[in-house]
């Protein structure tokens, strides 16, 4: 009997901690995406600072090195800089609670358009603040949402590697209409495009070549390449499409 009791006891010692440990681990597997703590986001530094723009003191909230929102107005007894500090503190607090960029949304808080994180207020896009930016409150909150989301996700507008030429400023911009030619089937015209960019570059564009791609069998991608030649791909840098003519934008 004794050896069997020892075996049973040993089995109990091994199994019980295993079961308890795994039962404790279970909830994390079913956590909703909105509350998933993301290491990358918890390591993000959130700061605020006071700057002077056009002689006016403004408060800025930074995620990493990116300014995600700028407050120009003092309100509620706080200066613009102090308000930015409050927003930065809120954002830090929500991130430390495990929220991520997925929790961000535009909604209403106390009947005012606001940027929210979960159900919590991050910052109010009040009409005066929006007017100073030349926006409506919804547009301002939308812009803040986009900036904050991108900064928290670590998305930056990345320049394409391998290119030796930089994108020119459109100081002397003009437009031109050229045919859209299929890159896969040379000579097949698919419509027309209005291209825009610096005049000296737009003048060299003879056609826009369309390259068709498929991403994950779910997205059909039509890439438009302004070219100096109709029959082959010779990209004109600094020129992009601003309108599509006689072209069915989406095939659904």
């Amino acid at each position, binding site marked *: 009997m004794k050896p*069997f009791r020892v075996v049973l006891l040993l089995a109990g010692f091994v199994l019980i901690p295993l079961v308890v440990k795994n039962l404790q681990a279970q909830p994390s597997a079913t956590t909703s995406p909105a509350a998933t703590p993301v290491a990358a986001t918890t390591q993000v530094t959130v700061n605020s600072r006071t700057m002077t723009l056009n002689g006016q003191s403004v408060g800025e909230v930074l995620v990493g090195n990116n300014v995600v929102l700028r407050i120009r107005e003092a309100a509620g007894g706080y200066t613009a800089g102090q308000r930015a500090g409050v927003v930065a503190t809120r954002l830090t607090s929500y991130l430390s609670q495990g929220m991520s960029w997925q929790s961000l949304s535009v909604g209403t808080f106390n009947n005012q358009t606001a940027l929210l994180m979960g159900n919590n207020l991050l910052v109010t896009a009040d009409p005066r603040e929006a007017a100073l930016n030349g926006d409506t409150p919804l547009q301002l909150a939308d812009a803040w949402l986009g900036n904050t989301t991108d900064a928290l996700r670590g998305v930056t507008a990345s320049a394409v590697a391998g290119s030796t030429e930089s994108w020119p400023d459109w100081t002397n911009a003009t437009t031109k209409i050229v045919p859209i030619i299929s890159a896969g089937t040379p000579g097949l015209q698919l419509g027309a495009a209005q291209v*825009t960019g610096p005049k000296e570059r737009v003048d060299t564009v003879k056609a826009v070549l369309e390259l068709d791609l498929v991403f994950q069998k779910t997205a059909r991608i039509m890439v*438009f390449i302004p070219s100096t030649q109709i029959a082959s791909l010779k990209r004109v840098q*600094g020129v992009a499409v601003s309108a599509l003519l006689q072209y069915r934008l989406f095939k659904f």
Partner: protein
Amino acid sequence: MKRLRKWTIIAGITALLMTAGIISGAFVRPAQAVGLGDILKIGGIVLAVSAFGGQINNFINNALGQHEAAAAGATKVVPIFSIGQGAYIGAAQVLGVPANVRRVQGVAAIQLSIGNIGGTGLIPISTRSAKGSSLSRVSGVGVGAIIDLHI
């Protein structure tokens, strides 16, 4: 008798192990990667672009690189908001100077007609949608690709 007891205990331990395995989730189904199609069904275009915009952007840039036609500017994938339909209808890759591209949050699609020719204007804007009375156009940025998310 001893042998029977021994087998009973072995069977008991085996049963315990299996029960523990089931309870503890040891027999969890294999994980499945969530694809663009799944996200589209659940959250629509804006969520799909938020989740997959970076990948689509790199996918386009890599394809262009293979054709020696990569754009020299910064690029980004954003949703297209149709002014006429008042809804998101797809996505676009915008390109331009990095500082300006960073400001772009969406592309507004507006119906145009030049004489008898119909078309769609594509305007990079600094907001996700264009529900206000005016468009916050971002200058110096154009469209490099459009992405149909409904195939």
